[in-house]
């Protein structure tokens, strides 16, 4: 598939200043300021093919937002080349953004005092959407997101999840070729998250829309992305298939157990105790040494278990593992 995004040596540094709390320090800072330089992007390179759903993950402050902003044309980087659909995003901004959609999970994007439908119609005019296409897509998306009842209510009276759904509709109405989703499933309940993921996959299949998803929700990644880029401290530390991460790096599981009674010593091969409390235990299970069902059977047989939760190690843990390679 042809490339839709080409990023070469993208660099960006921010200048910030620190301030200590308290009145004395506030006065001090009037006179002298301590400035800090933060390298948000240390010269990153990557490519994206048309029709991909790419996951961009990393801890907070890693450089995800900066990358997103540079690619959507709202940020002037310090240096580097970016080519998206033949545009340099920040140079041809007005023409470029007609082809993209952006959804920010944590920002308000709809006109606050107006019903969402007003924002939709405004976008129709701003993006020169054909009347018929507009109606068709709008009706379709409203149905899928199940927001028929709320699009005529002022946005300020909607819940976070409802606003999220409307934001997504607003971003996709003009059928952009490339869509950035920044924490799209924040505030959505389980059903809505499922609907959203299915919807993204549907749009991706039908229109070959490229998606770049930034998220902390691993389920989003697992369900949507074949390929992920992990970014940390402004550098790309992994760029490849998700499958590989699972196979190579997720070598352990985290098991949280709650007991009904005080348990005595716990020891099991392949298990490292991460946290221990009177009625709770957090174990890291080394999958190479032990299978999940073995340890679960052992726990259930040997103790009175009230609750068990099995989860993957966090992004931070995975990144740590990747560094240790």
């Amino acid at each position: 598939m042809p490339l839709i995004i080409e990023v070469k040596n993208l660099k960006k540094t921010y200048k910030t200043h620190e301030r200590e709390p308290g009145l004395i320090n506030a006065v001090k800072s009037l006179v002298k300021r301590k400035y800090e330089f933060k390298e948000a992007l240390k010269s990153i390179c990557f490519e994206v093919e048309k029709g991909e759903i790419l996951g961009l993950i990393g801890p907070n402050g890693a450089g995800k937002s900066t990358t997103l902003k540079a690619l959507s044309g709202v940020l002037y980087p310090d240096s580097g080349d970016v080519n998206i659909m033949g545009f340099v995003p920040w140079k041809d901004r007005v023409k470029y953004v007609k082809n993209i959609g952006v959804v920010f999970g944590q920002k308000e994007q709809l006109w606050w005092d107006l019903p969402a439908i007003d924002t939709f119609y405004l976008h129709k005019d701003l993006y020169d959407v054909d009347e018929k296409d507009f109606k068709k897509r709008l009706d379709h998306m409203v149905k899928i997101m199940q927001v028929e009842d709320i699009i005529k209510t002022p946005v300020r009276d909607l819940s976070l999840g409802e606003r999220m759904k409307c934001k997504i509709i607003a971003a996709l109405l003009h059928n952009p070729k490339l869509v950035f989703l920044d924490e799209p499933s924040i505030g959505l309940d389980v059903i809505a998250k499922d609907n959203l993921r299915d919807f993204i996959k549907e749009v991706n299949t039908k229109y070959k829309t490229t998606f770049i998803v930034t998220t902390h929700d691993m389920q989003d990644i697992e369900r949507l992305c074949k390929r992920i880029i992990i970014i940390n401290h402004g550098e790309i530390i992994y760029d490849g298939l998700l499958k590989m991460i699972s196979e190579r790096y997720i070598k352990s599981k985290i098991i949280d157990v709650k007991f009904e009674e005080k348990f005595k010593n716990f020891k099991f091969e392949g298990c490292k105790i991460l946290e221990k409390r009177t009625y709770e235990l957090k174990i890291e299970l080394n999958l190479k040494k032990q299978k999940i069902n073995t340890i679960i059977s052992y726990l259930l047989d040997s103790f009175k278990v009230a609750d068990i939760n099995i989860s993957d190690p966090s992004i931070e843990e995975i990144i740590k593992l990747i560094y240790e390679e």
Partner: protein
Amino acid sequence: MIKKSYAIARAGFKEAVAYRFHFYVTLVTSPLTLLIYYFLWKSIFEYSNVDIIRGFTFEGIVAYYALNMIVGFFVWSNVDEWLENDVRYGNLVNNLLKPFNFIFFYFFNLLGVSSLSIFLEMVPFFLIAIFLFGVKVAPVFYFLMFIVSIVLALLMSFLISYFVGMSAFWFKNISGIRRVKRVLIVFLSGGMIPLTFFPEVVQGIFKYLPFQYIRSVPINIYLGSYTYLETLMLIGIQVFWIFVLYLIVNGIWNRAFKKFAGAGI
């Protein structure tokens, strides 16, 4: 382009409608404000025992203040505050992502708001001024030129507001700067006292500044203080100032965008 501009103005209009209560309050209190000026100047004129002070009769100065309020309703621009809020809440990016010139976007938004003020403030208060305060309706030529002039004044007011609002990139919190701008501009444009009350030297300086073209000039056009030719010339100067201000604002904006895209996005 026209369709898009209209769409943006319409959205701004609708948002203002959501806050129409504020307009109603202004409408109710504005006759009171005019009354204060009425009595103030009545007592001054009576005490001074003259017919004309600095070029104004008593009726003339009442008309001046009435029109001052009408012009004020229309050219009032909160764009500096909008920009400051957008920087503070990280919302600039949303407008940057729209396929429309960023500066124009804010302008048409403002135009939508000002349009509502026409219906809810300007026209009603104009009627109050005519029927209750004896303000005269201007002859056709001056009336039409008045309308042209206040639209141009709105553009000027917008550009100055935008200019001030950009300082939010550097200073983040610009409530102080906005306050100074608000007071200064109203003062220097003749919004507190007609500019003829300033010493001649000062008036001479004002001629070279853009501020008088925001209030004093439109008001005086309505009052027929200028000849036909002078009126057209002054409108021409307004257009000139709009170009100059736009060049300044656009130039700074491009630089600001390159340097400070970390803020407010």
